[in-house]
């Protein structure tokens, strides 16, 4: 926890994460962003689907 607090001391910026990203090549950074976007969209879709499923009336058998 102390480590984490130190890393994010300036305006909540994770300096370790910045350092990690700076070690990557531009292509690796783009790939990381693409993967993040895909994951976000997948999660949003799943959340949306769950909401839709909840609203759908259950069929009685």
């Amino acid at each position: 926890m102390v480590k984490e607090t130190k890393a994010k001391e300036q305006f909540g910026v994770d300096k370790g994460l910045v350092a990690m990203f700076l070690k990557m090549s531009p292509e690796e950074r783009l790939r990381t962003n693409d993967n993040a976007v895909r994951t976000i969209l997948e999660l949003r879709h799943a959340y949306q689907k769950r909401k839709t499923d909840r609203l759908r009336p259950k069929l009685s058998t």
Partner: protein
Amino acid sequence: MPTRSGKPTGSDLSSVLEGLIKADIEFILVGGLAAVVQGAPVTTMDVDIVHKQSSENIAKLLGFLKSIDAFHRRPDDKVIRPKERDISGMGHALFTTRLGPLDVLAAVEEGRTYENLIEYTVEIEFRGHTVRVLNLKTLVELKRTSRDPKDRQRLPVLEETLRQLENG
């Protein structure tokens, strides 16, 4: 292809970038993705570019937009395809494409156009091609003047990335 509701089917921002390069379009990568390629650990959902406003470049860009099934990003489901006038004026044109969102900007903060920004770019090698990217220092300067809450929120991360880059 967009679905009937106008929703895109995927998001691959690297492919949007590669497509722009292969279509031989003159542009500067700005916004979140410009920050990402220079090492800022942020996530962005779209590609923002400032394009050169020559008639030849606009024709190439329009052709590329059509090839990736671009349509204007709107809150409703109306599918409106791009026209030459959308990208030849001084405004912003925000598109959804089958590869992901692409924002085509005639200018950024303080009305800075392609010609005004070109000297503040860095060249980055990407998939065997060269991409012009607005340098992080200028990006930070522009974001400092921005009123967009998203920009204000990101600013400390961009500043820290710039600080670490400058300190080697």
